[in-house]
């Protein structure tokens, strides 16, 4: 029995070693960002790999290396990157995936299959559509001295917080891609002067394809609020054309709280969606002077009207681009699945009537009366 115990104890040594699956960080090339572009029938890809550069006296600083390859599929691209990067090319820490608009217009699902399928892949990676080729965004490796991945990541985080772009990661794309009653929206990034990047707005998709249309600035924010997917705040400037002085023409509000409710009604067998958006706002810019109680009520009414007009423009763009970003098909599917089956939602969405209504409630004038 003693021998049996000793044998049992020794057999423990076999699993404790864990040497088959050890993977040293120092032997890996950790990719932090990757861009995909259409290159004829192939994919052109550029990935930034972060390494540590010695700066003397035992100190190191992160340093970006860019590698450009072509391949037929994302896995092919990864294999090609593995051949040229020192150590094993690893996507385990990937922070951002950039997709060029031309490639996004074809079909984005094949780009993500690898990330969905592999247990080891990181699906919290952010996904962005770029105006122009994605490779051009990444090739310098830095923006104003900041590492490109960090810069893009920070840009997106602040954009999400200020309701300029949707929170889009590989992981949360899966449900929308397969949902027949909703379409994807992704952040749209563009390059501006001096190599700086700008969060342009929301890229609109019809199923897996980028429609080429987008909502920018305030309209993008309004769409996100209508979806109940806004960030902490959103800023809107409304132009008062009746103002005498040019300086007095703009009224700026910042949302504090918002709630959107979408209802489906049927009129002579046709669906009509009403989107009721309630906004609690602060007045952050009002140059006309004092705001008393009566003025505030009037202003709220005026802002509600203006914001409703803007919301109508948003829904018009959605119809035109055939992008059901609000998940209206899903609402019909829940309320009346049989009627939903009678629609070819990807094609019929452009004819769906959407009636938005925004109600603004001013909760503060700032610290001025």
């Amino acid at each position, binding site marked *: 029995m003693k021998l049996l115990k000793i044998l049992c104890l020794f*057999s423990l040594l076999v699993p404790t070693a864990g040497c088959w*699956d050890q993977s040293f960080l120092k032997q890996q090339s950790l990719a932090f960002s990757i861009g995909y572009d259409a290159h004829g029938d192939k994919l052109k890809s550029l990935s930034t790999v972060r390494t540590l550069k010695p700066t003397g006296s035992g100190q190191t600083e992160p340093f970006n290396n860019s590698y450009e390859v072509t391949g037929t599929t994302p896995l092919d691209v990864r294999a090609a990157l593995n051949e040229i990067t020192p150590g094993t090319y690893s996507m385990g820490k990937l922070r951002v995936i950039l997709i060029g608009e031309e490639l996004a217009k074809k079909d984005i699902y094949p780009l993500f299959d690898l990330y969905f399928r592999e*247990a080891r892949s990181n*699906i919290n990676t952010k996904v962005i559509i770029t105006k122009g080729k994605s490779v051009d965004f990444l090739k310098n490796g830095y923006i104003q001295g900041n590492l490109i991945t960090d810069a893009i990541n920070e840009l997106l985080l602040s954009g999400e917080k200020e309701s300029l772009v949707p929170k889009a990661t590989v992981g949360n794309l899966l449900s929308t891609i397969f949902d027949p009653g909703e379409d994807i929206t992704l952040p749209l990034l563009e390059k501006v002067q001096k190599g700086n990047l700008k969060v342009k707005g929301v890229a609109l998709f019809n199923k897996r394809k980028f429609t080429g249309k987008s909502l920018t600035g305030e309209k993008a924010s309004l769409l996100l609020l209508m979806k109940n997917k806004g960030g902490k705040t959103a800023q809107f400037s409304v132009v008062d054309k009746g103002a005498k002085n040019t300086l007095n023409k703009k009224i700026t509000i910042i949302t504090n709280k918002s709630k959107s409710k979408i209802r489906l009604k049927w009129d002579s067998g046709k669906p009509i969606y009403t989107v009721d958006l309630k906004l609690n706002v602060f007045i952050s810019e009002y140059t006309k002077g004092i705001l008393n109680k009566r003025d505030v009520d009037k202003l709220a009414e005026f802002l509600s009207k203006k914001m409703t007009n803007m919301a109508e423009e948003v829904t018009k763009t959605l119809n035109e681009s055939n992008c059901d970003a609000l998940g209206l098909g899903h609402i019909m599917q*829940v309320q009346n699945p049989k009627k939903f089956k009678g629609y070819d939602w990807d094609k019929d969405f452009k004819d769906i009537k959407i009636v938005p209504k925004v109600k603004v409630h001013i909760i503060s004038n700032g610290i001025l009366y």
Partner: protein
Amino acid sequence: MITMQVNDKPISPFQLYCIIILSITGIMMFSLPYIANLYGKNNAWISVIILLIGFQLIGFVIIALHKRFPEKDLFAIAEIVMGKVIGKIFNTLLTLYYLFIAVYVCLYGCFLAMEWILPLTPKPVIYLILLIPSLYLAMAQLDAFARYNSIAIFITIWLIFAICFAIPDMQFSYLLPVGEVPLAKIFKGAIHIAPIYSGVNCILIYLPKTSGTIKAKGKAVFYSLLTISLIYLFIVSACIALLGTHALDIVIMPVLYLLKTVTIFSFFERLDILMISLWLIPSLSAFVIYIHLAFTGLTQVIQKKNKIILFSLFILVFLGCLASQSNLSIYALHKGRSLMLPYNCIAMFGVTPLLLILAVIRKKNISR
């Protein structure tokens, strides 16, 4: 079984509560929403509610049996109510069933480990990682095993806590409309996910070793089955709400996928890898419980009880895994699950009600 000696310290009703929960939270829980969604689609959560009710009834049957035979375990009761010969045949079949389940759980654990964390480690080594600590646990005193379970239950709580972080990304309208899926399909879904409760009969192994009144034991059984069913309801609902029924059709391990999407406090991510490593702890409990069941059945049949028998059961499971590992894939595992489904249903829904009916008809009762 070594843990089931007469001089074993009895376990408390709370420890029984923990043991029952862990006997049912096995490694197969990770694919539970996928299996439920295959049949019940967006109403798959109703399948779990059906099981909740079904297993509460089984709980009542188990307590009724225990009330009639307070000192006897499942296999001893079978011999009393069925007679010696039929009882022994019945116990042998049940023992073989639990051995098969133990092999299946071991293979499933190996598949998960290979897919997620140990792709290059040889399969026999992965089996040993599961089997060696299980052997140690199975050989321990029952109260030591119960204490282990009381600690291991925190992993289940941690899992629920981690899933809660995905709630902001969930869309609960994916669970609607109620009644769109035919009831027959929802029931079929319930039947297909029922094998996750395979360990339910272990209650009759541990009840005689539990201290306290019948009321306290009944409460432990009732609340443990309720707790685990509610945990499953939460997990299935959370996965459908996060992924939607269409995406769930292709994600075979939705619970791990859900954990993959979670980031806690902006820096703590890849909870799937953490969870699959931690889940070895509750999985060991579930595995040991199957071994306990097989061992108790075998000792009842051969009327012998020693460490060698327990050890040989582990060797059998190891050999069983080696024999059936050649095509270890999700397809093979799902096929195995489908093949075992009728036996699972008989073992879970047939055994205890049959024993109770026979006990009532044959007026067998040793409590008075």
